[in-house]
Every structure is written in structure tokens, then in C-alpha cells.
């Protein structure tokens, strides 16, 4: 009965994964893998190099620099998205006029393809011709170098990612909120619990199942959020906003011949990091009595 599942998983996940791990142990690149293109035949001349790629990556300061910023980026984005999503979800989880409209409007960023949103943001951020700086100039404020200054660029990419991520948090948390029975709040109110006490003792525990899942998912997505950074700043200015995945891309796809093996080593390291995070996170949740 499970044979089809095993087969599909094997084909779409297993093979690429094994192949990636294998490549990371070689010195394969675009110039030495086998291929036939019309009259040209390139033989495979790459060889097994063991852990050399990993050694090279881990002893290079670049990896650790990028890891530092990737962690800041992930924690910043997930933290802000969760807080904003939670606040908005609570505000929308009551009967108010035009609730459907608000809900729809807040989901809109999710409905637009990410790359279109990012390009729009890039135009808004344009230091010389963008609307944001035109608005600020109207208020007598100097132009802000949104994407041209390392610190501003970091804040700018986080802002865009939060903007993109809030709808998901909102929808998920709103779903969680509607599943909390209203009687609990009524009972708490009878016992004289204030709004904050109700939030802390009913809403938060009631949301735990949902929030722990979305936080983990969101962490993994943000950690690997390639399009926002790549399309907004290409990792720049300099390499200020480069996270691990965009740096791996630059290392291995911008230079020629494309370095498949080093790229694979970066990929495996990223996978290992995320797996560790996921396992630790689950352990922590289990200690709190949460079964995931």
C-alpha cells in the first residue's frame, strides 16, 4: 500500500538529495560534467574529493559572516511577522462592520506573485525616483538611501519580507482563534479576568498548536527566502544583505564555470542547519507538553 508513496518520495526527494550530497563530495563543475551538445562532446572528468568542499566552506570567514546575518534576518522577520499577524488576527476576530473586506485586503499581498511585489517595492525604494523618497521630500525629510546603505538595505529587505509574510500568519492565527470556544472567554469574564489575563491564559494557550507550527514553517521559509533578497538587492550593497542561500547562488551560479560541487556543499550545510533547528524546536515544544 505504501509502495507508491515510497516511489514518489524516492524520485522527487530522495534522488536529488542523494545526488546533491554526492556532488558535494566531488569537484564537479559546469566544465567537467559529461554532456553532448550537437557536435561537442564533453567527457566527465570530475573526481571524488571527500570533505574538501566542506572544509573550504567552513574555514572561510564568509560562511560565518553570512550565517550571522541570516540568523538576524530570520529571527527579525519571523518575530515581526508573528507579532503583527497575531495583533491583526485578534483585531479581526470579532464582529465588526466590513470584516470580510478587511480580511480580503490583508490577504491580498499573498495573492500577488512574490516577484511582482518585490519589483514594486524596488521601485518604491528607488533613492532618486521612488515614491517613498518623494513623499519624505514632501515632508521636508532628506532622501533615505533605502537600498544603497548597508543598514537601510537590511531594514528594507526585512520590511518587505514582513509585508509578504503577515497574511500567512494572519490567516493561520485567525483560524486558530476561531477554534477557541467562546464559552471560555465568557467564563473568564464572569470570574473577573481582564482583557490581558484572558489573552494570556486563554488565547495564547489555545493558539499554541497553530503558532508553534507556523513559527517553524516560517523560520524555514525565511531562512531560505531567496527571491526577496535576490530580486530586491541582489545581496547588495556589497554583500550586506546576502543570506546563506543567495550567497551560495552567487558563488556557484554567477561565476563561470558554475561550481556545482561547492554549491551542493552549501546546500547540504543549509539543510543540516535547518534540520538541527527543527529538531531542537520540537524537543523544546515537547518539553512544554506539546505533541507535534
Amino acid at each position: 500500500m505504501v509502495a507508491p508513496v515510497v516511489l514518489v518520495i524516492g524520485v522527487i526527494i530522495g534522488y536529488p538529495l542523494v545526488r546533491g550530497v554526492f556532488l558535494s563530495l566531488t569537484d564537479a563543475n559546469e566544465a567537467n560534467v559529461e554532456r553532448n551538445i550537437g557536435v561537442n562532446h564533453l567527457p566527465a572528468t570530475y573526481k571524488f574529493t571527500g570533505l574538501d568542499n566542506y572544509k573550504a566552506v567552513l574555514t572561510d570567514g564568509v560562511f560565518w559572516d553570512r550565517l550571522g546575518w541570516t540568523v538576524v534576518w530570520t529571527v527579525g522577520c519571523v518575530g515581526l511577522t508573528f507579532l503583527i499577524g497575531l495583533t491583526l488576527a485578534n483585531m479581526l476576530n470579532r464582529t465588526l462592520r466590513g470584516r470580510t473586506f478587511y480580511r480580503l485586503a490583508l490577504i491580498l499581498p499573498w495573492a500577488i506573485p512574490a516577484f511582482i511585489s518585490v519589483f514594486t517595492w524596488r521601485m518604491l525604494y528607488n533613492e532618486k525616483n521612488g515614491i517613498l523618497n518623494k513623499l519624505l521630500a514632501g515632508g521636508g525629510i532628506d532622501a533615505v538611501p533605502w537600498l544603497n546603505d548597508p543598514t537601510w538595505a537590511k531594514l528594507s529587505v526585512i520590511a518587505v519580507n514582513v509585508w509578504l509574510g503577515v497574511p500567512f500568519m494572519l490567516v493561520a492565527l485567525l483560524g486558530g482563534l476561531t477554534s477557541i470556544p467562546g464559552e471560555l472567554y465568557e467564563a473568564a469574564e464572569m470570574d473577573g479576568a481582564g482583557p490581558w489575563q484572558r489573552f494570556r491564559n486563554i488565547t495564547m494557550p489555545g493558539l499554541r498548536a497553530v503558532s508553534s507550527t507556523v513559527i517553524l514553517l516560517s523560520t524555514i521559509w525565511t531562512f531560505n527566502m531567496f527571491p526577496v533578497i535576490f530580486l530586491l538587492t541582489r545581496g547588495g550593497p556589497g554583500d550586506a544583505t546576502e543570506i546563506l542561500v543567495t550567497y551560495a547562488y552567487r558563488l556557484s551560479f554567477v561565476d563561470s564555470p558554475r561550481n556545482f560541487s561547492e554549491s551542493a556543499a552549501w546546500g547540504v550545510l543549509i539543510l543540516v542547519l535547518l534540520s538541527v533547528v527543527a529538531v531542537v524546536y520540537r524537543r523544546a515544544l515537547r518539553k512544554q507538553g506539546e505533541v507535534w
Partner: protein
Amino acid sequence: MRRGIRGVTVTALVAGLAMTASACGSGGDDGNGNAGGELAGTVTFWDTSNDAEKATYRKLAEGFQKEHPKVHVQYVNVPFGDANAKFKNAAGGNSGAPDVMRTEVAWTADFANLGYLAPLDGTPALDKPDDYLPQAVGSTKFKGKTYAAPQVIDTLGLFYNKKLLKDAGVEVPKTFTELATAAKKIKAKTGATALYLRGDDPYWFLPYLYGEGGDMVNARDKVIEIDDGAGVKAFKTIKDLVDSKAAVTDATDGQENQLKALKDGTVAMAIDGPWDIEGARAGKAFKDKENLGVAPVPGGSTAQGSPQGGWNLSVYAGSKNLQAAYAFVKYMSSASVQQQTTEKLSLLPTRKSVYDVPAVKKNEMVEFFKPAVDGAVQRPWIAEGNSLFEPIKVQMNKVLTGSATPEQAAKATGDAYRKLLKDYK
């Protein structure tokens, strides 16, 4: 709720896979070649010309069908920035690559090294090879074979707004030092900034580097040169120009911002190439076409020079319709097509004979750019030539935003080159 979320993920995954599958499915057109005599089938042509140029190129490419009615030209405009990666993805995967592509001069050796290009020696594609300018031929050769036909040659020049310079009472600067001095007058008299400095594109760094007598690498002796004194000075020049407010810059969108600033008259000068002549003239500052002046790029402390660039036409080795592709390259690099791109777009031909045509001879942009091209610095035509740019880009960003000193930037670029070019000193 949990199941709900997982459901969403699975749906997204399935949708994503379906999209990937359909994207992969669209293989190349299997237009069949010719048995003997008339050409037939489809020639897919990837053109990399910009917005101001693409309509002309499309028309010219489709003109091939008049000569060969059975051939269908599939014209595709691929933005310059994506073209290199897009071609490699398609060519390496053996699906979706065009039959003919307009390749940047630095890409030709790179693609040839990876086996993506068909050698053109002895094919109809190389028509009257002696008619090509010798410097244009340089980039088409790799390991003794020819992998492309030169189509357009170019270099950088200093575009200037004649009126703004006149109002400020300054001459066209011959060096970056002169430019910095003139900047104060220009700002005081006209309110405009003197120069737009492309801080986002490493190609624009080369005049500063050549101006100090430096180079990226010396390919003949296999020596990395960027991190010697000249490289440091070049980084310092761009930093000083921006710090002293003689120049404005950006780390992103430099192409659009530079052209807009020049067109609107908010900057008096910009370093740019012939491909932007038409675009610049569309702006309000150049309603009077005569107002756009072009001069050699300013020099540095020891020399003056700008990089030689341009475009070649190359044939994908896996093309299913090689004969038609060769004929198409022959047509697109022919004297008559080159003459038309010059007349319509002021682009510089690569054929000597075209320069003798009166309409080309008296084109004022050709009048300026031809001597500039003759004096332009040839880049190292090695397989890694294009990869030399990325480290410069990162470091010039860093210098301009103050997160690296010119010394650190030059050293970091040199270190990156050493990783890339293992057998270089």
C-alpha cells in the same frame, strides 16, 4: 487547523511541480534543416538589445525571412541582465536554447569553453572575415577556433549636456581631477550634479582602473593586477568623487537612474555607451538633439582608457537547424544590416567596409566613437573574463557605502580572482 496548513502546503507543492514540469516540457523547435538547396524551418534568435533598440532589431531579424521565405525567425528579446544565466540553463539542460544568440563579447569564450557553441570556421556564418575590424575579432576566438561573428563594437564615452557645461562656464573635463574641480562651478551655476557614477556595474569601474595604468589581470603572463597600487587608486577616485558630491551614485538600478538623470538634466555628465544614445535623446534635456555631446572618458592620474565592448552572434552547438542558423548569422552580421543599425541606432559596425558608407561616415556618434573604439582597451578574452566582474561589483558597492577602504577593496578583489584563476600569480 494543522491539517489545513498541511493541505495548503501540499497543494502549493503540487502546483509548483506542475509548473516546473510544464516549463521543462517546452523543448526546442525541431525545425528540420535543408537536404540540399533551400533553407527551411525555424531559427530562434535571442536578442539582448535594450528597450530603445529592440524594435529595430526585431524588424531586421525578421527581414531574414524575405531572403529565405521557408525559414521562420522566432525573435525573442532577453534582457541583458538575465541573458547569460538563461542561456546557460537552457544550453546545459539541452532544452530551450536558441539557435542563435547575441552574446556579449566576454561571454563568447566562456560559452565556448563549456562546449555550448558551434565553431564557425569554414561555415557560411563567417562571411568575408577579412572585412572585420581586427579588435572586434579578438573576442570571437577561443583556443584557435572562431565561435562568433562580431556584430556591434562599442566602448564608453563621456556624455555631456552642452548647455549645462556652457552655463557653468567650464570645459569638458579631460581627467577626473578636472571633473572634480568643474563640479563646484556646475553645482553653483546650474544646480546640477556634475557626474552620475554607475556604482552598480563593474564595467563602469574600468575607466578609473585604466586611468591609473592598471588592469584586472594580465592574461598573457597570468598575473593578477587588480590589487596592485592602480586598483587601490581607482577605488579611491570613485570614493572621492562621491564624497565630494561631484558625483551621485546608486547600488541598484544604475542603468535606469543614470539615463533618467541625464535626460532630465539633473546631472551634467554621465559615462555611457552608444547603446544609450537613442534613449538619452528621448529626454527633455535633449529636445535639441545638438545638446548631447560625447567626449572621451576622463583620464586618471597616469593614463586614459575605456574598455572595449560589443556584441557577437554565436550559434548554439545543439541547434537542430545549423544551416539556417549559419545563414542567419551571416545575414545579421552583413554589411547592409550593420549599416542599418548604425543609421537607426547610432551603433558602431564591426565591418571596415561599412565605415566607408557616407551615411555612416557622417553620423556624428560614429565620428566620435570610432576613434574611441580604436583606442579602447581590449579585455582579457579568457573563459573566466565575465566572472572577473562580480568581485569588483561587490567591492565597489562596499567602497561607496563606506564599509570597505579602497585598500581592503582592492585586496578582496584580488583574493577573489585568485580563487577563480587557480594558475595565476
